[in-house]
């Protein structure tokens, strides 16, 4: 950068003097030109001259690079004076005063000069009289800037030091720029004659010629002594050797020197804490061992136009944030704009445990792993809204109602049911008993004979007429004990007639109580018969197990289906069963039943194997309707159903002394009572309903 170039105050890009706008950020350069035109006064660099102790070597040529460097450094933005700088200025003032006292005491020959390379430079001694005078009265950089508009001291320069904005412009910046102090500082002029270290080389740059032959400052020891005599803390040996790192402003980074290069300067050890001293990196070699402060050397480079002016080092806490232009902000990744404090905190943290102990800037794994916090107390109480609680209550009631029996409403009765039931029973039993005991006969036997009863009679008579040999009739006593009275009453006459003609009866039953009932039937029917031998005419084969399956077996092989008598002896050696191989060998089958299912089973399983033999059924009145279809289909040759059928049979047989006649009157009386009960009950219900309607009409 040359002296004629104009540094953009926003982005730090050097521009031509004739340019009105920055070629990079296209912002006006008027303020920067003004600033650049300002040159720091010599007296602003008193503090730096104090370090040196000799201001005579400083070039006085206003055209010298120092002055031009002052102009160049006018670009430095106003900033707060760092604390360390303030201390330096204070000490430099003190040293100056002390030096003046010593010179007055010892004489003017004992003037100090700039320290040699590698040693601390006693800046406080390197002062011109004007600087010393001005140093006695330290001025605020703001005041100085207000007066002259230019940074007058290095402090002013550092105060002006702000991160160069690369595009982001704030109105305050312009104001600051306008109030900046002299950019070309006097301290630059004072320190310019100091020769940098012989091995120092600006990367890619050549040192200015005026610095080439200059010898390093002599009397380093005197410098040290002087330094020590200032009652400053003696820094440890080697302190200050570790150079202080400073970050260059962005505008400097864009220069040919290279961005991000760190320039080192030697500073007194008391300025920096020892920890920072230990962390100081090795110098890059550019300014290592330079007998002059880095800023001075830099200013030389700046003046020569080879090196971009650098800013004095700052503490991390005082560094101002760089202003980033908008175009850079837009393309900047998000991670780069993450809070710096995280990175800063991580960088400052030194890992103390684990494999990364001693390293800085690493993820604190120990903390993450071992970081445990108490889990927040969670409420276990179920949060239920009011609406939900209502629904839950309804559901609960529904479930409870399921288990609760339904309320039974008691029925209203016209009369007490127990009394009425007793009365009905009493009437029935009394009437029937009276008629049975009295023997009153007021009714007539039926005159109209059912056809099925007539055919039954005819078929039965045919069986009776078989006498040589006598007929062998299979009698199936398949009725329950409950209807014994009816069945035995109606079946006694036909069975007796068979026994009278010498017919042989074979009793069998598919009901457990049938064999006993059949035996009783036969015995009662044969009561009073002359020349009757029960064992010779009747054989009881007992109970057939298996229902329909046993009937199927009986139809095909009766000797296998019913091999034994009721007493357990073998039955098929009896003369009654002689020659019987199947049911077809019987002369007829008489079925006594009260169950239509039994009749159906006999018809389905046995009737096919009868071979034309008659199947006659004596049934109770309740089973007759279900058996008559078989009669109408000629599967049954005759049916005698109930007392009415027995009454017909007796009239056909001409037997007037049958027990049927004795029961006929009671039978009809009982039916008439039931009919009357139904009619009376219906009548009562009708009257009650009519009365209720009438009452309701009256009410309405």
């Amino acid at each position: 950068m040359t002296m004629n170039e104009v540094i953009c105050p926003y982005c730090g890009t050097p521009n031509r003097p004739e340019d009105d706008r920055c070629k990079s950020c296209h912002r006006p350069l008027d303020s920067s030109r003004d600033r650049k035109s300002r040159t720091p006064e010599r007296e602003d660099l008193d503090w730096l001259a104090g370090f040196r102790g000799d201001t005579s070597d400083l070039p006085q040529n206003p055209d010298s690079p120092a002055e031009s460097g002052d102009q160049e450094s006018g670009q430095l933005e106003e900033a707060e004076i760092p604390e360390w700088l303030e201390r330096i200025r204070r000490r430099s003032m003190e040293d100056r005063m002390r030096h003046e006292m010593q010179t007055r005491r010892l004489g003017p020959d004992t003037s100090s000069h700039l320290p040699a390379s590698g040693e601390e430079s006693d800046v406080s001694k390197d002062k011109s009289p004007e600087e010393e005078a001005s140093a006695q009265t330290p001025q605020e950089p703001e005041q100085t800037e207000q007066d002259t508009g230019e940074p007058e001291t290095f402090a002013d320069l550092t105060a002006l030091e702000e991160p160069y904005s690369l595009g982001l412009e704030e109105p305050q910046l312009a104001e600051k720029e306008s109030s900046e102090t002299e950019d070309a500082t006097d301290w630059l002029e004072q320190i310019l004659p100091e020769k940098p270290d012989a091995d120092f080389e600006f990367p890619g740059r050549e040192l200015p010629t005026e610095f080439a032959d200059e010898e390093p400052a002599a009397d380093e020891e005197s410098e040290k002594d002087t330094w020590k005599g200032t009652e400053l803390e003696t820094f440890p040996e080697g302190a200050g050797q570790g150079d202080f790192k400073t970050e260059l402003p962005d505008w400097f980074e864009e220069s040919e020197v290279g961005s991000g290069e760190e320039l080192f300067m030697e500073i007194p050890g008391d300025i920096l804490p020892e920890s920072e001293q230990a962390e100081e990196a090795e110098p890059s070699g550019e300014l290592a061992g330079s007998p002059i402060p880095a800023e001075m050397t830099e200013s030389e480079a700046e003046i020569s136009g080879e090196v971009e002016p650098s800013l004095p080092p700052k503490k991390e806490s005082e560094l101002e944030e760089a202003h980033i232009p908008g175009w850079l902000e837009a393309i900047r990744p998000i991670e780069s704009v993450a809070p710096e404090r995280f990175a800063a905190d991580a960088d400052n943290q030194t890992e103390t445990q684990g494999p990364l102990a001693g390293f800085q800037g690493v993820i604190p794994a120990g903390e993450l792993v071992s970081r445990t916090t108490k889990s927040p107390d969670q409420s276990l109480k179920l949060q239920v809204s009011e609406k939900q609680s209502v629904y839950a209550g309804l559901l609960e009631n529904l479930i409870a109602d399921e288990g609760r029996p339904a309320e039974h409403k008691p029925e209203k009765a016209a009369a007490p049911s127990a009394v009425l039931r007793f009365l009905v029973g009493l009437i029935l039993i009394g009437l029937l008993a009276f008629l049975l005991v009295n023997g009153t006969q007021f009714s007539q036997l039926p005159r109209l004979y059912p056809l099925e009863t007539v055919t039954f009679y005819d078929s039965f008579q045919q069986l009776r007429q078989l006498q040589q040999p006598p007929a062998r009739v299979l009698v199936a006593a398949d009725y329950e004990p409950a209807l014994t009275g009816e069945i035995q009453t109606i079946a006694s006459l036909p069975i007796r007639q068979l026994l009278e003609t010498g017919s042989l009866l074979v009793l069998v039953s598919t009901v457990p109580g049938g064999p006993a009932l059949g035996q009783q039937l036969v015995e009662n029917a044969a009561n009073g018969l002359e020349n009757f031998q029960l064992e010779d005419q009747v054989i009881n084969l007992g109970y057939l197990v298996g229902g329909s399956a046993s009937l199927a077996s009986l139809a095909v092989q009766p000797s296998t289906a019913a091999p034994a008598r009721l007493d357990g002896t073998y039955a098929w050696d009896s003369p009654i069963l002689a020659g019987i191989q199947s049911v077809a060998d019987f002369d007829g089958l008489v079925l006594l039943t009260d169950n239509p299912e039994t009749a159906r089973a006999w018809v389905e399983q046995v009737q096919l194997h009868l071979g034309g033999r008659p199947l006659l059924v004596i049934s109770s009145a309740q089973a007759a309707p279900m058996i008559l279809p078989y009669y109408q289909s000629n599967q049954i040759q005759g049916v005698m159903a109930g007392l009415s059928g027995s009454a017909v049979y007796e009239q056909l047989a001409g037997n007037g002394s049958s027990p049927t006649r004795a029961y006929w009157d009671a039978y009809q009386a009982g039916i008439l009572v039931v009919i009357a009960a139904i009619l009376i009950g219906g009548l009562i219900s009708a009257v009650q309903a009519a009365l209720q309607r009438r009452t309701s009409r009256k009410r309405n």
Partner: protein
Amino acid sequence: MRAPVSTAIAIAAGLVVLLGYFLPVPELTPVRSAMIDWAVIVAGSAGLIAIIHLIKVHWKKLTSSQNQDYYSLITLIAFFLTLAAGLLLGPGDNRFQKVVTSIQVPIEASLMGVLAISLTFSSIRLFQRRKGWMALTFAISAVVFLILTSGILSVSDQVPFLKEILSALNALPIAGARGILLGIALGSLTTGLRILLAADRPYSG
């Protein structure tokens, strides 16, 4: 197909018995007879199992801690006494047959009488419990057929058209019974075919 062996046996047995009825093959007759005898034995065993189960149920009711039924004790006593009498006396003994004729017959006959009285009482309150055309229809049919069964209308053969009327009325229940029997027959046929075709496996096949 679950349990193919049992299914095959069931189908084969049904086909053999069925063919034995329709085909005059002499070789099938003894096979059919044997199968029927096996069925009789199985039915008899089922009867024994039913009796044992009945004893077990009454024993549980007697020994249960809750809802103890002391009538089960009478049932079990009667059962074992009857069993003992039958084993000792034999079914042909007249004294053992009196268990049926002197105890069972009167008891069941009495129950039948109570049933008759209850039905009479219910017939009186028929229209109080059930109202409507069905109740009226039932009442009318009950009255008519009770009259027919009683023989009151059959006392005279001189009344004209009485036979025809009575014949017609007697034909009504026969018609209904015939329909029921046809339905039973068709159901039995369908059930048999389903078993033969393995569409129904009541034997848990």
